[in-house]
């Protein structure tokens, strides 16, 4: 499987998971559960450089490239936001930079998350997606 196919397969898996829940409260519960499974990042990544602007809660994200693939480390001080971070990482970790640079994260729209979130949180989510794409672009440049 190419990493693009992996991305699509992972996205489909997340969509299926969320579609299982009819109630939004249950979807939030699932999102929170995702947040709780995200390992706490070390304090050393929580720098202003790694901070994503545009969130009411704080989100830090950093990435490294190993054997041609990109791995993210991220964290947030709010649990629901951690859930969003966990979802994104679950879908994006270990993919090729060129796939990340093009990722449209359409699955979030399919779940209805982008429209259901409050505007500030939706902005934050947009900033996170943008940051992931930027890492993809940056790692494409440094072969």
């Amino acid at each position, binding site marked *: 499987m190419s990493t693009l196919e992996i991305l699509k397969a992972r996205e489909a898996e997340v969509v299926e998971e969320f579609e299982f829940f009819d109630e939004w409260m249950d979807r*939030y*519960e699932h999102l*929170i559960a995702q947040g709780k499974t995200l390992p706490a990042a070390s304090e050393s990544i929580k720098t202003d450089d790694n901070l994503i602007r545009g969130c*009411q*809660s704080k989100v830090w994200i950093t990435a490294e490239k190993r054997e041609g693939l990109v791995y993210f480390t991220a964290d947030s001080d*709010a649990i*629901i*936001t951690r859930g969003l971070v966990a979802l994104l990482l679950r879908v994006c970790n270990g993919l090729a930079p060129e796939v990340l640079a093009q990722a449209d994260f359409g699955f979030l729209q399919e779940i209805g998350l982008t429209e259901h979130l409050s505007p500030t*949180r939706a902005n934050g989510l947009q900033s996170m997606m943008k940051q992931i794409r930027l890492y993809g672009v940056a790692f494409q440049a440094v072969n």
Partner: protein
Amino acid sequence: MIDAAALRTEFPILHQQVHGKPLVYLDNAATTQKPRAVIAAVVDYYERINSNVHRGVHTLSQRATDAFEATRGKLQRLVNAAHEHEIIYTTGTTGSINLVAHGFRSLLGPGDEILVSQLEHHSNLVPWQMLAQHTGATLRYIPILPDGSLDLDEAQRLLNPRTKLLAFNHISNALGTVNPVKQLTEWGHAVGACVVVDGAQGLPHRPVDVQELGVDFYAGSAHKMYGPTGIGMLYGRTEWLEKLPPYQGGGEMISTVTMAQSTYAGLPFKFEAGTPNIEAVVGWGAALDWMNAIGMDALMAHEADLMAYGTERLRAIDGLVLFGTAPEKSAVLSFGFEDLHPYDLGTLLDQQGIAVRTGQHCAQPIMDYYRIPGTVRASFAAYSSREDVDRLGDGVERALRMLR
């Protein structure tokens, strides 16, 4: 005593579902909802009266001017100003404070001091920072105590003959603390300072008598007291209003204009350049009548009941920390949990149809004091009820079960 259920029938907006649940609106410190009487007054203004004020001799203009000025009279009586011209229409509390701060640009210089409290909304803080920056004056802060009241001993120590301005709020929007306006004003005047009070939360929740309090300026917003957005007032004592230069230039605020120079209109028009927000002024008049019909005593008794009931309900929740526990508080319950971000709580409350404010409430220095990212704030109005408090308490508990 107020019958909240009966009052609610006058507020169309309250009768709707949010995320499939009946709306519980507890963000009244941000803005209150509007009764039908206010909405009807605005509609009536456009259907029957609309015309520019103070200009035409024609009938509609006269009607518009009468309605516009009638509200000024109501505001004068509301705050017991000595003269009607001491009530200036502004865009809101923020606009009012900026008007004063701008006026003081020519009255302050290096060595002068501005004393502001740490309890302030950014609207009663940033304009003073800008004024200090512009004039070279020094900005000092009255610190707060753990219960969210002002450190009055420190306030007295900080006041000195160099203090030219003393600014603080009547009631804190973030914590609900009611400040001793009269006491602080006396201390301010004893050193010759001009006293400016942010009354955005004061006007809707307490009787205000500017002559009895002795304040020099008192600012308020219509939308926090059942009136329209985009309109507010500045009460200013005549001698101060005469001393301050005009804020903005334009029509309405002038007496004569030649190519060389202009002379300014008298009070209050000197500070009211341009066509004002007439519909909002008219709507505000209706809101004032509406509040008057209920009466401040009944409003305060209702609020006290909700505060007691709400404080008890929230305190029963495991781990809940209440921010702001000053002896005299008004209409605000600000809270959080040590291990939880207020944003998570706010999101899950919203999912249950409960509208609260989360975050710093435009009062970052207070959050810095408590070293927290923000709080969840529930705030009450006349139509708030014990059922709202129950829904809030249950909603918080449900959110906790999900988050922990």
